[in-house]
């Protein structure tokens, strides 16, 4: 784990600074978490690709000095699938928003998980659509306020972790922007993991979610994140999670880290069996 003072600027695309993110937004903390993880892994940025969708999180690829793709809303994982399959050398990281990954792009998320393709999805979950001005998301909790649920949401929220686990992702973690000590480690673990990884990071949107739900400013929201989550036995064996345990406090930590045949490997095995000789790249 790198120390807070470490210089991450070599990883960043300076000409795109400052970011579009609002003061107090948690997305910058997550970007820092990703950068810290990359620094700790010492990866060559020539061989790292960021593929983002549309929304506040979708802008993340602009800020990393790597191979950057800013695609269409919800489809980043499908683009990333093609990219990874033909160039398996690339480390592919997909920053996704909650609407991006679970509303319009839900189909791609579950299928990437099912295939277990070696891509790291980092879900920036701030429970709201920020870029378009505060509409409800599939992760907005019941009764929460948004501009499209002005009287409170009547839809239950998706649990990203449960969804990813059920769909077959082989590395699944959840953390928050408050828990910055753990975040880079979980992300680094996901990048190192050979298979489909989902790291959900609960992030704060003081501009919309905080204001509409009277959760205060960014520091208040960080404390809110602290209080509504409970750290699992950190990095021990993956726990058995029961629904009862999830009531009230949301567990955070590492939920699954297991090996299962990875999709690109499987495919290249198939090429070998078919006598296709050289691999795609």
């Amino acid at each position, binding site marked *: 784990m790198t120390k807070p003072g470490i210089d991450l600027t070599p990883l960043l695309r300076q000409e795109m600074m*400052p970011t*579009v*993110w*609002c*003061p107090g937004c948690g997305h910058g903390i997550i970007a820092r978490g990703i950068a810290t993880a990359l620094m700790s892994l010492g990866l060559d940025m020539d061989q790292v690709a960021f593929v983002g969708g*549309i929304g*506040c999180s979708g802008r993340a690829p602009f800020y990393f000095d790597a191979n950057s793709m*800013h695609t*269409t*809303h919800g489809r980043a994982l499908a683009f990333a699938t093609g990219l990874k399959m033909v160039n398996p050398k690339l480390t592919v990281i997909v920053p996704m928003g909650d*609407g991006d990954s679970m*509303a*319009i792009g*839900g189909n791609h998320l579950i299928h990437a998980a099912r295939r277990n393709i070696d891509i790291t999805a980092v879900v920036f979950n701030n429970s709201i*659509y*920020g*870029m*378009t*001005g505060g*509409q*409800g998301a*599939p992760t907005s909790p019941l009764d929460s306020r948004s*501009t*499209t*649920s*002005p*009287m409170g949401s009547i839809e239950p929220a998706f649990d990203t972790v449960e969804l990813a686990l059920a769909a077959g992702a082989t590395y699944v973690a959840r953390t928050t922007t408050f828990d910055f000590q753990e975040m880079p480690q979980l992300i680094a673990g996901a990048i190192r993991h050979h298979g489909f990884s989902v790291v959900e990071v609960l992030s704060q949107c003081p*501009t*919309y979610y905080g204001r509409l739900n009277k959760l205060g400013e960014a520091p208040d929201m960080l404390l809110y994140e602290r209080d509504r989550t409970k750290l699992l036995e950190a990095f021990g064996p993956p726990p058995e999670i029961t629904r009862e345990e999830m009531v009230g406090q949301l567990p955070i930590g590492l939920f699954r880290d297991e090996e299962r045949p990875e999709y690109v490997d499987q495919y290249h095995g198939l090429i070998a069996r078919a006598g296709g000789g050289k691999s795609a790249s």
Partner: protein
Amino acid sequence: MPESLAWMIGGDQGEGIDATGDVFGRVLSRLGYYIYGYRHFSSRIKGGHTNFTVRIARERILAPQDEVEVLVALTQETIDRNCALLRDGAPLLADSQLKPTLPEGCQAQLVEIPLTQVAREIGAPVVRNMVAVGASAALFGLPIDAFETYVREKFERKGAEVVAQNIAALGRGHAFIEEAGLVARFALPDAVPRERYLMTGNDSLSLGALAAGCRIMAAYPITPATDIMENLASLFPRFGGAVCQMEAAITLVIGANYAGARAMTATSGPGFSLMQEGIGLASMTEIPAVVIDTQRVGPSTGMPTKNEQSDLMAAVFGGHGEGQRIVIAPGTAVQAFDDGFEAFNLADRYQCPVIVLSDLALAQWLQSVEDLPLKGHLIDRGAIVDQAELDRLTGEFERYRVTEDGVSPRALPGMQKGQFLATGVEHAASGKVSETPQNRVAQMEKRSRKLEPLRARPGAIEARHLDGADIVIACFGSVIGAVDEAVDALRREGVRVGRVQVRQLWPMPDVPLAAALAGARAVLVVEQNATGEMRQLMRIASLEDGRYHSLLHFDGTLLSPQRVIEAVHELRVEEEV
């Protein structure tokens, strides 16, 4: 040009620039002036330069102007970016805390005003912008009590202290300008106070849909269409309606319309491209569906916060196969109300998708509206059968009966003996799948025939000053504001110019358009896109000949009346008109 003045406030996004512009615009509107309020912004929520311009006149204005008379700067960036818009000697009010400097060559009169400091003295940093409003009111020689009254109403809910702070801020700003000897620097001519609405096209379109009986709205957030969804999310529960935020909105709309509701969706380019499959299903099943496409710069994500009119070809030709679509395009908030209403009538009458092509400028910029013409509209549900008719039926109900005008009787689920199969596969009169060549031709021709009468629909074009016009400008959508202003100015100069606004773009109203353009020596098609999409459609309708010219504007900025005037002058030289 009408006598107008423009006031601009600029700063960082998230600093209440819009809200301040809104206050200034609304008070001037109450004082009887016509307002056009527009914003420069980018796809981010906070930070980054933004500015809001309030253009003020005594006649209706629906376009930006090239210069501004007063600039209020909350950041140095505001000065650097916008001071070129100021006339020489015009006042530039800048927060003295910035230690503002004028770029080289700028001849504006820099007025340093301690906005932040005054707000601090009042004990409420948030009233900084209100100090600027008070100062601006003084510069224009406007009565400060009108602002005080507005502030009192606006902040009443927040308590007496907030009201007092804001009123104090207004007063301090006003006093500063008095001391500086700049009161009524740009005195506005008196106007007759009159209450008008100050609204956007998204606002009026939402109300039009509500008035038309739309009670289901499904959408997915996307700039610049989201306001419609948000408006209706607040309005619908009071009228028994519902807004559903969907990951595939068009499908819910088709389902709801099938059930007999009036339902719609609103989106922008990328979402519109995604809806092409669903729109085709509505065409094939002859289920009415209203789709609002609020255009922004494309292709792909393009520039989500900048104006363009480049989805026209996709609206007409975007689906696979040959499905019927009606495409209409409002240009003003009043027209957006009309079209928001009439879209549902057209959809029910012709049993097909109706695409309302709005655009960012219409959707988001504030304009003065005298009244929304509710009286002229009647709900027409088209050929929905009544239960008695069905009861008399001896055979099967034929939902897709081949009729002379191509419109078939429509039953709604729940009507007895009115059951039918709605399928996207080719079907016979009963709705059951049939792929025989005879049936295919009969159904295709039936569906195509439906829209024929629309080519001559009254109101499909709106023309002004055609008599004796040498040059006729043709346009659609929000550029009508700039075009109308240009036409009026040119006519005052003695240039014989008229204009045609195409309100219905598909089916192309070729007959009335040809008649309208018959007398012109030159036709100038004005569009905010790169490839002249409406002109291409006019060409398709065999309207084009050697008289046609284009003014294309597609850098994302709003088209100004001045640019249209220049284009007309260039054309006059070229064509010796």
